[in-house]
């Protein structure tokens, strides 16, 4: 379990993480979601004691990371795929990590096998692709067989097979009862992996709820109705207890699917020109939620002229 209490980090006048409190529970995958620059990596670095919070605190299983006697056996972390010396082999990188935390050396080959790097274990990591580096980082995170796993943008640079592998791995780790904390700026990826979402923007928590709740709250769907008999149709639908909103020339109806809405209008003997189920995507929901908190927003091409 990871517990942050009023965690704050400022760099000069810029506040990267702003009074953030959350709990990451064991036994499920918690997605840490936010646009680039939202404060995800800074938060994760504070979890690992690499950056010192300006105020507030964060603990792992009840104690500060720095107070852990053998931290790799308690928390496994992938922070950046490239936190490696390019001249060192994959096996040597894992060897010194293992030795530093009293982890048996047999475990090195186990995790190499687990991430599928056995055949290139003796190669210098400078030659690795981004995806291979990412796999090595995950191997390092799993080295101590830790009950808490922290992965910062683990699918970056992975091919589709690798992405699916990370997804399955994260779910398996959670199913074993571990605490799994995965950051991403990709909403769709998180929707498929995470049981719980912690959404952050400009250093503040925007949402902390189950993925299912997030989807039903934010990715609303409605039925678009176009009709020449605008007011009559709206009246009929409202009479049946539906939520009807007029947007320009169309009606947006919530509460029933398209077929049921069509039947109601048909029974009333009214005309329909269009009947469409519109589902706003999770990506849209995420964009809407974080719209005000995107640090580097590009101006749409058309708007510049």
């Amino acid at each position, binding site marked *: 379990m990871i517990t942050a209490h009023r965690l704050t980090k400022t760099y000069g006048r810029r506040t990267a993480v702003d009074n953030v409190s959350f709990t990451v529970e064991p036994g499920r995958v918690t997605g840490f979601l936010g646009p680039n620059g939202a404060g995800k990596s800074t938060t994760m670095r504070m979890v690992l004691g690499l950056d010192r919070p300006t105020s507030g605190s964060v603990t792992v299983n009840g104690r500060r990371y720095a107070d852990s006697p053998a931290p790799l056996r308690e928390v496994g972390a992938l922070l950046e795929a490239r936190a490696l010396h390019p001249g060192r082999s994959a096996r040597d990188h894992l060897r010194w*990590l293992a*030795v530093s935390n009293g982890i048996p050396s047999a475990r090195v080959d186990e995790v190499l096998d687990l991430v599928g790097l056995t055949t290139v274990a003796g190669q210098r990591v400078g030659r690795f692709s981004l995806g291979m580096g990412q796999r090595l980082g995950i191997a390092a995170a*799993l080295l101590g067989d830790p009950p808490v796993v922290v992965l910062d943008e683990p699918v970056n640079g992975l091919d589709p097979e690798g992405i699916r592998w990370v997804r399955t791995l994260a779910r398996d780790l959670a199913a074993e009862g571990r605490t799994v904390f995965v950051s991403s700026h990709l909403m769709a990826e998180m929707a498929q992996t995470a049981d719980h979402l912690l959404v952050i923007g400009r250093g503040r928590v925007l949402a902390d709820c189950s993925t299912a709740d997030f989807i039903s709250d934010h990715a609303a769907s409605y039925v678009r109705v176009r009709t020449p008999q605008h007011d009559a149709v709206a009246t009929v639908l409202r009479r049946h207890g539906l939520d009807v909103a007029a947007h320009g020339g169309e009606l947006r109806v919530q509460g029933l699917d398209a077929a049921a809405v069509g039947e109601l209008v048909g029974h009333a003997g009214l005309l329909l020109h269009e009947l469409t189920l519109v589902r706003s995507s999770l990506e849209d929901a995420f964009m809407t939620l974080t719209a005000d908190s995107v640090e580097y927003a590009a101006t749409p091409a058309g708007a510049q002229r």
Partner: protein
Amino acid sequence: MTALGALSPTRTAAPAAPGFGAAVRAEWIKTWTVRSTGWSLTAMFVLGAGLTALVCALAAEDLAAGTTGEPVGAFLTWGMMFAQVTAIVLGTLAVTSEYGTGMIRATLAANPRRGTVLAAKAVVLTGTLFVAGTVTALAGYLAGNWFLDREGIGVALSDDGVLRSLYGSGLYMAGLGLFAAAVGLLVRHTAAALSIVLGLVFVVGNMVMLLPDAWGEWATKLMPGNAGGRIATPESFNPMLLDPWVGFAVFAAEIAVLLAIAAASFSRRDA
């Protein structure tokens, strides 16, 4: 591929805290699994032993004739003047390569006790440089003295200051490496740290002689390379320098102060 099978068997209940020995072994593996270590130490040996042998071979005849006015002892570890560059490089890289690659985060995640990490690094670095420096100086002495012997001006290991200059070379290399590592810890950048230390030892150390009167004399005596380097040679070309052990004590104190500042910064700053 599933995580379960491979993860469960080795699951440990209560992790015992690995001590200082584990930190040293981890740093030892890190040191010897990158090529730069081997290259730096090879360069130290080639420069240190090779140039000593070369200068002795070239100067032996003139020295025997007594026409140079230079002390013979000053030539016995002559190559170490150049070999010290490699100690500075090794010491700098021990720290800055971690910052350059982002490795420092892996290091501090594996061991969040930063004082322990720094001490382990220092032990491995100074141990390696002490042995390499002493071996290099010994090889240079043996080769150089062979040429001096032929001219009848050979120096015995038991002669005044000779043995001291050999392990003194090891001590000086270790000290320089530590000094460079401390600078690396403060500036966290390879090129910047190298420029500062090389400039201090090779440029500023000689320029201060131009200061007027006692200022120039004392600045020269106290500059790290000048104070610390005297222990690495039986006799010096420069009679102005502090006595070997006095100079080394000054050098050690300078390292201690710099290291204390670097350690305080290291324990406080974000990685």
